[in-house]
């Protein structure tokens, strides 16, 4: 089969694949079939779009929970997919594709936060919880109570509780120790629990 035949047959089946992967709603756990990956590695636009459609919702949700603002989250998703597509030739399947993409996105989003200096590295971040309530009106509702946490605390909570990151991985991402991650998570969760209880008693 020539390269053109391969691309032609791929385009015909791409629409169906997009629909099935979208319906699965498996987020970053969505598996990528070998044909799609091979076509994407040859630069086939339909295959690249299939990959994007398969992971776009998970990617945007994660970026939003880290960055807190939809526009910034879109920038991170944009940069991550562009980088992923450029590095696709070097992807050998050692890790599941979704996991590989997720790590790329997390690194991009945290770099973005760091470049915007949206945290000052203070250990008193959790004390800002009540003061940060006034920021809620600018936040996306998908953040829920997380919107009340400072950026770094929110990211640690989400990565550990929902994305399966270990404390050592989180510490490395933030250039901090494992115990720093444990402490920040425990304090953040405690403050969120108290906020929930306060909400329910009001």
């Amino acid at each position, binding site marked *: 089969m020539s390269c053109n035949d391969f691309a032609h047959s791929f385009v015909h089946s791409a629409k169906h694949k997009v629909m099935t992967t979208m319906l699965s709603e498996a987020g970053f756990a969505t598996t990528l079939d070998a044909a799609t990956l091979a076509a994407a590695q040859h*630069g086939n*636009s339909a295959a*690249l*779009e299939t990959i*994007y*459609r398969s992971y*776009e*919702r998970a990617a*945007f*949700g994660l970026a*939003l929970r880290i960055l807190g603002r*939809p526009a910034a*989250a*879109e920038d991170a*998703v*944009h940069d991550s*997919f*562009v980088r992923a*597509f*450029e590095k696709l030739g070097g992807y050998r399947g050692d890790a599941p594709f979704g996991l590989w993409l997720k790590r790329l996105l997390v690194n991009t989003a945290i770099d973005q936060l760091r470049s915007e200096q949206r945290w000052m590295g203070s250990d008193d971040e959790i004390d800002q919880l009540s003061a940060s309530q006034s920021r*809620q*009106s600018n*936040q*996306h*509702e*998908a*953040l*829920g*109570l*997380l*919107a009340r946490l400072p950026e770094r605390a929110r990211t640690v*909570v*989400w990565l550990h*509780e*929902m994305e399966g990151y270990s404390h050592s991985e989180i510490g490395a991402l933030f250039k901090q120790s494992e115990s720093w991650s444990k402490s920040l998570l425990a304090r953040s*969760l405690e403050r*969120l*629990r108290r906020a*929930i209880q306060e*909400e*329910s008693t009001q």
Partner: protein
Amino acid sequence: MTSDSENSIQLDPDGGMRGYLSGLPVADSSAALWPRIERTRLRRRRRRLLAGSGVLGALVLLAVLMVRVPVPADAPALTREAAPVIEIAAELRDIDRSLQAAYDRDASPEQIDALWQAREFAATQINQESYHHDAIIRL
């Protein structure tokens, strides 16, 4: 923030928050994000191709000039005949720079097409000059 989602907040039986976090509304990015990614990808690919072709062209030109310079008997003629080639090569480099700048500022397809046409014309000229030059050397 909607109060509905917060009023129904419940902790996990173990006091955790995974149940709450996994129940947060799903967020969707804008429909314009994919076209934006695709535009960036194509622009960066063209830029890499352009940079690659520019380097290759310069190397080929350098190789052609270096091969022809050491022929002592034809040296004066070569100098005279190489002049147009060098001028066109400089013009090609200018066009390449203009193309690079056009891609950087997202110029219109018409502007980019015009630059590519100018580049093709210059490339054809440099090929013809090289052929003419070869003919002189053969004579």
